[in-house]
């Protein structure tokens, strides 16, 4: 058995995408400054990619180099481009950036959280796993959507009609569940939904769902769990 002097690990980070629409001209930089003034320190040290989807310019090396310099000057740590044309991408690679696949958009407040955490992560404990579950202690109101994108979702309150809970893992609600709950959204058929009072509009596990209409009156307002058995979504009272 040999000991390697390093380890290689896959690691996920949240990056911020800057998507210019048109030329990176003075108006663009002015608008960028206005944005940064509104949210000072918000983006400091955040990993940035330039999303070229909405612009045809920035094909010239000097324009792109200027954009990179201007961003770095504003403490925006740009490291890659995406969605560029062949010419744009080639220029970017020459300028020292890497070309990235498209990625997925998330609300910027979630980016804010991970960005804010980033600089605080201690170097000496790189292995400390982030908790994968998401804990919500306030009532989830109609129109709100909560997404536990890596594990369980635990709500220690009620969930209003018209609210939506989504989790890669299980969903636990220690209050009335009146909205929608979708567990195992990445296809985990062992995921379950638990709640203290069932009045849900919809329950779904790994894509199989039942709506309030076919949940029936017998289990209404009961403490229940929902799970999949033989490709069927079962809802049973908790004893």
């Amino acid at each position: 058995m040999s000991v390697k002097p390093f380890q290689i690990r896959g690691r996920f980070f949240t990056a911020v995408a800057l998507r210019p629409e048109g030329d990176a001209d003075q108006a663009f930089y002015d608008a960028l400054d206005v944005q940064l003034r509104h949210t000072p320190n918000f983006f400091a040290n955040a990993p940035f990619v330039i999303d070229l989807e909405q612009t045809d310019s920035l094909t010239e090396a000097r324009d792109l180099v200027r954009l990179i310099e201007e961003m770095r000057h504003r403490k925006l740590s740009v490291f890659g481009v995406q969605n560029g044309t062949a010419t744009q991408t080639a220029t970017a690679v020459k300028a020292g950036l890497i070309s990235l696949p498209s990625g997925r958009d998330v609300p910027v407040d979630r980016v804010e959280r991970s960005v804010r955490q980033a600089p605080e992560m201690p170097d000496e404990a790189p292995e400390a796993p982030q908790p994968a579950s998401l804990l919500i202690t306030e009532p989830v109101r109609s129109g709100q959507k909560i997404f536990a994108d890596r594990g369980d979702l635990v709500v220690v309150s009620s969930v209003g009609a018209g609210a939506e809970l989504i989790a890669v893992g299980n969903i636990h609600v220690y209050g009335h569940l009146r909205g929608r709950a979708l567990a195992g959204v990445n296809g985990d058929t062992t995921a379950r939904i638990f709640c203290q009072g069932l009045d849900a509009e919809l329950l779904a596990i790994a894509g199989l769902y039942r709506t309030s209409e076919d949940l029936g009156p017998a289990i209404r307002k009961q403490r229940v769990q929902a799970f999949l058995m033989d490709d069927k979504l079962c809802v049973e009272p908790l004893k």
Partner: protein
Amino acid sequence: MAKIIVVTSGKGGVGKTTSSAAISAGLAMRGFKTVVIDFDVGLRNLDMIMGCERRVVFDFINVIQGDAKLKQALIKDRRLENLFILPTSQTRDKDALTRDGVEKILNELREEFDYIICDSPAGIERGAHLAMYYADEAIVVTNPEVSSVRDSDRVLGLLNSKTYLAEKGGDNTVRSHLLLTRYDTQRVARGEMMTVEDVLEILAIPLLGIIPESSTVLRASNVGMPVVLDEKSGAGKAYEDAVSRLMGDQIEMRLDSGERPGFFQRLLGRTA
């Protein structure tokens, strides 16, 4: 420094403007210098309910756009020494409201008033958003029926996320109170409307008051008088109690029938 209170609901026609008028009059009667602002651009209503529609020269939007000074647009109530109204425009639309403009006016008003009451338009769009944005407290006006409760729940979510205090992310959040209006004990008894307990169970915020359905409300608004000024009105009395609770007084809830709903009193004793 003034306290900014938004009167909001999501749903239209539930009694926001009626409540804004009654509560600001109630505050003024207690000696607080109070201004009530109509955020419902395009649907001037508040000045009518306050009986000053014939005295409107300049409005909120004129002030935002710099066409008039705030002092010129504020209308002093003829009955109550401490009460002022900032009417809205009937001819413009909600796009004329800007966050900076609203902030500037509220800052100016904060210097001079004890309470600033913002009468929100229905919906959750720009006008409603700006009405709640700078609020310290919110009075969520709800009728005891499913769609109104649902909309109030939605608005509570926005109060917790889309306001200045929420975005700032400190310890201060917008304090929300429930004002249950148009409460008809007979229809509730017949099961046509939701009970207080049902509504409280869903919304889970402290109850500021229960305003009975009452013909005195319509009568008062027809003569342009906030209903608290009508001493014989049960609704007026209920608004007065609500104002007292807003001040932190512990006052027992009562319904217009005189019956005391002991259960929800205990269920959600005010934490104020």
